């Protein structure tokens, strides 16, 4: 087991380099560079950027150098822990990403817990009580959750909040804590705001997991080992929890690695609507403005976390599912 994990970790290093190169080239693929977008933004407010100023900036940002030179300069600095300067914000990238990544992780984790806490029991219930009233109700609610776009749900909840409760909209913190240093009070404030995005983001994932859980469990429930266990006089609750559920958990665990990237890429619109200070919106704007070091840092971090997440999934799968072998 340990050998397997070490091997996997060693393999991750060239893999991540590959990802970083591909993502850097992809970010560079659209025509133009950060300065093109910058000029476009300025021109929109009728501001003229002189050719000298553009040349100054291009030189300053190193955009006059060949792509591969830019890449190796970037990756070389990252190995030393320096993520470079964000063109758009003119601030070191590392100042911009860590808190956002931390909040993103926190939000992902909370959403994951919420999804599991809801999907797991409902899924088990609707499999065991197939075609009962409860199954239909849970399925119906689940499909609504799946069918409603998250950003729309967010807008509706915000609208209700504004119109009926007079609350401020969006964000993860009350105004007084927004830029305050971390403290217990700030953490509690965060928790009091976290439920809204968690519900919004969790609903669709919940719905699909309910279905997966239900389908998987239904497959298992008719298997001979269940009958055997039942014949041996195991209580119905223990019987289901101990064997078929354990097998049906497979999709829950094997998708852990995807949670983070899907939350960052899939939930961008929701995060924008809710003004969440997470990685998604910043990454989107960095990609739109071709702010390559910032975008690159996010892509790299997300890839790394995905790779780590997949590793975790695999380890957990081995522990949970006796059928999986790791050789």
């Amino acid at each position, binding site marked *: 087991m340990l050998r397997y994990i070490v091997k996997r970790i060693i393999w991750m290093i060239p893999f991540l380099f590959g990802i970083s190169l591909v993502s850097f080239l992809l970010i560079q693929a659209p025509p133009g560079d950060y300065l093109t977008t910058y000029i476009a933004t300025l021109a929109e407010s009728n501001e003229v950027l002189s050719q000298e*100023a553009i040349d100054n900036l291009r030189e300053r940002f190193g955009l006059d150098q060949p792509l591969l030179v830019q890449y190796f300069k970037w990756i070389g600095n990252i190995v030393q822990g320096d993520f470079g300067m964000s063109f758009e*914000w003119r601030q070191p990238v590392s100042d911009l990403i860590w808190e*956002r990544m931390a909040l993103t992780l926190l939000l992902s984790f909370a959403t994951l817990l919420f999804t599991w806490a809801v999907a797991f029991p409902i899924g088990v219930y609707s499999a065991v009580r197939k075609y009962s009233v409860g199954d239909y109700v849970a399925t119906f609610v689940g499909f609504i959750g799946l069918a409603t776009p998250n950003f729309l749900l967010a807008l509706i909840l915000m609208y209700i909040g504004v119109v009926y409760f007079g609350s401020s909209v969006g964000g993860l913190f009350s105004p007084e804590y927004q830029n305050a240093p971390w403290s217990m009070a700030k953490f509690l404030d965060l928790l009091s705001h976290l439920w809204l995005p968690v519900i919004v983001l969790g609903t669709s994932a919940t719905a699909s997991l309910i279905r997966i859980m239900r389908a998987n469990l239904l497959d298992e429930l008719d298997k001979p080992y269940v009958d055997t266990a039942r014949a041996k006089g195991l209580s119905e609750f223990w019987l289901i929890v101990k064997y078929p559920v354990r097998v049906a958990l497979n999709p829950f665990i094997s998708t852990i690695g995807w949670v983070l990237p899907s939350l960052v890429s899939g939930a961008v619109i929701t995060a924008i609507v809710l003004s969440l200070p997470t990685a998604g919106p910043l990454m989107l704007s960095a990609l739109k403005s071709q702010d390559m070091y910032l975008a690159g840092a996010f892509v790299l971090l997300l890839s790394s976390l995905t790779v780590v997440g997949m590793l975790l999934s695999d380890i957990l799968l081995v522990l949970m599912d006796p059928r999986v072998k790791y050789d």
Partner: protein
Amino acid sequence: MKHVGRLARTSAVALLCSTTALFAMDFSEAPMLTEMVEAGQLPPVEERLPANPEVITPIESVGVYGGTIRRALGGSNDHNSILRFVGPQGLVRWNPEFTAVVPNVAEAWEVNEDATEFTFTLREGMKWSDGEPFTADDVMFFVEDLLNNEEFYPNAPARFAIEGERMQAEKIDDTTVRFTFAGPYGTFMNELATPLAQEPVIWAKHYCQQFHPTYNPNVQDLVDATEAVEDWAALFRLRCGEVEAPNRWSNPDRPTLDPWVVTEQAYTAGATQVVMERNPYFWQVDTEGNQLPYIDVFNNIVSQDNQALLLEAIAGNIDLQRRRLDGLADRPVIAENRDAGGYEFYNLTPSASNDMAIHLNMTHKDPDMRAAINDRSVREALSIAIDREEIIDIVYQGVGEPWQIGAVPEHPLYNEQLGRQHTEYDPDRANELLDAAGLDQRDGEGFRLLPNGERFAFNVNYSAETTRWGDALEIIREQWQEIGVDVTSSGVERSIYYSRGEANEHDFMVWTAPGGLDPTLSPRNVMAVHPQASWFAIPWTRWYLSGGTEGEEPPASMQRRYELFEEYKATGDPARQQELFAQIHQIAADEFEVIGITKAPQMTGVKNTRLRNVPGAMPASWMYPDPAPTLPQTYFFAPE
């Protein structure tokens, strides 16, 4: 402009424009500052103000202190929204009407006869927001240590250079400084009033010198210790800010001359709000000697999504805002919630001349297309084949007026021909014109053919963010079908759009046209001068900007306009300046290069009903960064 001209003609007369010295005035201050004075944290108000503070006459009444004003910023690249409120506190500023340059940080100035020397008088005893004196040394720091330092500016900044020679400066005494140019620079005072010309007074020497190798020999240690910074210039910009970048608002330690200064809740990428507090050393007072600003706190929430911002507005969480709320589509929703949200509309006159200008590519790479586009009667036909009223009704909800380009009728440079020629809808005449121009052959689908047998068709991209242009192009496509001209359009991402334009690969481009209220500041549609926006002839622009070494030589009429423009820039006499620009406009009107659809529609912003001293109407422009020239430091909340 008149103001500058009077100075230039009479040469060397010191002016104290709106400011009269009120020596016997008793000054008062905000209660929050009085508390600090009593606690010994601040010197008394008389010592904080300059000897001769600028006295502002509020447009409605003297205000009361207190309150928080709330606005909204976009997620990134919206730093100029802060500038638009806090103001570009430059040496001079625009008057509220956008017709003249008036004193600001400088209380007076003189211009010599040939507009090569500009002498500024600063306010004696004026202080930075940290209480340190502001003197001519700060201005000299910019000119000598930054502007004329090639490590900081490898290429000469256009605004502060003439013929490639950078501006020089000389300190006469602590409150007097003289700028010298290598040649006449008649438009310098206007340039100084624009929002990005604040460099001479943005960098406090006593603070920023620690990042400059001339003053801190150990600056390299700081560079090494700072992540992502490679040289002192980058460090300087990171810590001391730039005129045009978010990092200008990211460092609470940086002293400023602004009415509000940024707090620990600064504008960084993680920020969800940016909070600024009053500058206790702000150098303006009202007519009763109350130190400005009236409002204690300036708070910007960061809202990335326009719909979320709209919600904030109708919830009454925005006190004064136009940007991102001025879309025509949002107006009914905002209007409906006025009472509940406790806000009202205020009007803005856009400085733009046309909301949708069609730049036919006069320098098209295909010779047959080029020949067709360069035929004036073809352009006339294309213009009169557009039913502008229909577009205005459908796309602009009836708000608009058929219009080409050029100054609005209220402006002294208004040219009726430039603005209104060929705006009548007349497809029959358009067909006649095209037949006469030799485009009388048609293909099986009824579309006209170019002499080479190809269809006379335009493949057009537009910036996908601006959906109204896509809608209007669809209508134009149908209208042009009637005269046998084909248009296919597709929305693309903005930088792709720009790249295509700069590569001169477009048939035509669509963009707003500036120049309604600011024709001399943004002449890019009457002359090919803007490398990123004079889309009708990018190669001519290159030729002009490179002094004839790149691009393509433009025809005589364009070269004539360049000559007039050069003369305009070099002359200090406003009457002569106006005459020269009128000639440029007349040539542009005769050439008729750019086709417009509708005059830029009036805009509205939302304003808290309790907010006072806000004009009911003001220009909306970047060059006049609304609302800053109407002096938000005089805004106040009427007591409930």
